[in-house]
């Protein structure tokens, strides 16, 4: 766990801290963007986290659930989430308007090993809602661009209407310090100008890489990992430099409730970022 980032409600980790939804809008038909500010100004500004960490959002009355933080700690004060409509908590969240109050506790989990990734090449591979946690590390790398070598983004969505952060990612294509490849499995609009095919078809567009000095970051639906990992292993990227951020049902987020226990680890404490090496040795991880 990331000990440097002090937890918001330290004496009682179960207590949610009041936070306000300052902005919310639909990213796709069933995915919504939430920008949130912790009400206590001092806490809002001092709150720190690492890309890849997550928090528990409470809609009091509906419950609380874990969500990746999609914003970057390099832009403090506001927290951003990208949330798909799925269960009780997300359904209640979708009904909430701007200016409503929610509860937040966190940050939890290990996050990406930023220190190790510095002065290395970074390839970020996104499938669908996998953008939620990976946007944080992508923006972090771009905000601290001089600390990393090549940065590449391979992004796959099912169809144009299901691509989240569409304008933001298209705008990134203009940057010369980022290699950005976008794809959709199927173009049902006839207007898609980028690659068509599953996310793995983007690997052929990637410029030649220096595998030993590369970190690959992957997040997407469970079915995606097998195919993406195969490509990364073929590129000779070491297994402990292939990083995945995984999801698991969670109730407490602090290593007690047992829901996210896999092998001898807890996803909420020892994850959600795992290496491919971990995945080989801990079955049930994906």
């Amino acid at each position, binding site marked *: 766990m990331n000990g440097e980032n002090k937890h918001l409600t330290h004496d009682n980790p179960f207590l949610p801290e009041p936070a306000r939804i300052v902005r919310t809008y639909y990213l796709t038909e069933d995915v919504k963007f939430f920008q949130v500010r912790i009400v206590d100004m001092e806490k809002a500004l001092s709150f720190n986290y690492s890309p890849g960490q997550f928090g528990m959002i409470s809609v009091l009355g509906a419950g609380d659930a874990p969500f990746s933080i999609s914003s970057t700690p390099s832009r403090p004060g506001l927290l951003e989430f990208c949330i798909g409509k799925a269960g009780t908590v*997300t359904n209640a969240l979708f009904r909430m308007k701007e200016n409503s109050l929610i*509860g937040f506790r966190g940050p939890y989990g290990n996050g990406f090993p930023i220190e190790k990734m510095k002065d290395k090449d970074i390839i970020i591979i996104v499938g669908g809602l996998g953008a939620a946690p990976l946007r944080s590390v992508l923006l972090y790398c771009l905000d601290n661009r001089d600390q990393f070598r090549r940065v590449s983004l391979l992004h796959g969505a099912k169809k144009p209407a299901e691509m989240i952060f569409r304008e933001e990612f298209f705008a990134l294509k203009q940057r010369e310090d980022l290699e950005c490849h976008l794809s959709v499995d199927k173009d049902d609009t006839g207007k898609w100008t980028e690659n068509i095919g599953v996310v793995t078809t983007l690997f052929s567009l990637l410029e030649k890489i220096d595998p030993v000095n590369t970190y690959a970051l992957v997040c997407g639906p469970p079915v995606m990992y097998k195919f993406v990992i195969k490509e990364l292993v073929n590129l000779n990227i070491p297994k402990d430099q292939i990083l995945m951020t995984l999801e*698991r049902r969670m109730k407490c987020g602090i290593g007690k409730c047992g829901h996210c226990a896999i092998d001898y680890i807890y996803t909420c404490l020892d994850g959600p970022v795992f290496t491919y090496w971990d995945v080989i040795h801990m079955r049930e991880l994906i």
Partner: protein
Amino acid sequence: MEKILTKKSFPLWVKELVSYKIYAPQKNGDLWNFETIKKPESINLDFPNTVLPPKNIIFPQREVLLEFESSNENKLQVKETLPDDDPTIIFGVRPCDAKALTLTDKVFSGDFKDPYYWKRRNSTVLIGLACNIPPSPNCFCLSVGGSPHSKEGLDILMTDLGDKYFVESLSEKGSTLINLAKPLFQQPKAADKKAVEKTQAEAEKKITRQIKDIKKIPSILKNMFDSPLWDEESLSCLRCGICTYLCPTCHCFDINDEVASSSPVKGKRVRTWDTCQFPDFTMHSSGHNPRPDRASRLRQRIFHKFQYFVERYQNYLCTGCGRCISKCPVGIDIIEVLDKVRDYGS
């Protein structure tokens, strides 16, 4: 501190402890369970194993974590509902159940301390009763590093010597209770100590069930993740979860909001025991379930107790109380399952 307390004096000692909230095994119908005591003379320490271990006194089956109220967009009140820390005594704790609390202690500690658990835990004194006769035919504490007179996790251990108890204080909390009624306690004679040793040696001989070669189990399990054994052994499982609810070491829980009114929104956040034996325990909201069948859930229970917990905390997550064996409605027997695991490894 070692003392002798006659059985006649026992209720007099309890009388001196009235400032504490006192729990002891009570018979209700045919079933024994830990309940609060009003009359000191009603404590009967001649009991078989209680249906539930005393874990629910420290970690209740249902407890309110917080209360919330939101009358409008600008108001959200969250009130923590920590338990009160009334000094509490539990009489008649079996050594296996006391040891189990030392294991759940590990889980509820760490970087995030659980304030609800620790508030009760720290205000409770555990007075154990050595098992001269195994309280259940399925007792196997000796196999998992315990014994019928183990002192682990206890503040006081009492051993029944016929018309008197041999009382051993094991902590400051324990000594305080003895000192509250000093005149009732006598100095033990050499013969008393001998009697205790004899009783204890005999008690160990009376335990018939055991997990053979348990030290080999964790490493054998490591290679058994994909074994067909889990399918075979779990076929009869009804997913009732009783093996985990009655287990003194199982500690998984769920958290849910209970709403009393929707406008203004008012309610409680409640935690309740949960179990890895229920199908939706690991079900994602997307419908994906990484542990989708009975086989993977039985495997999780066995692995957690005899492999994962050993790797994380260097202990088995089992103290050999035998409740999961005695109470399983379809006769799934953890000792028999582990016998098959051992056979698989040889």
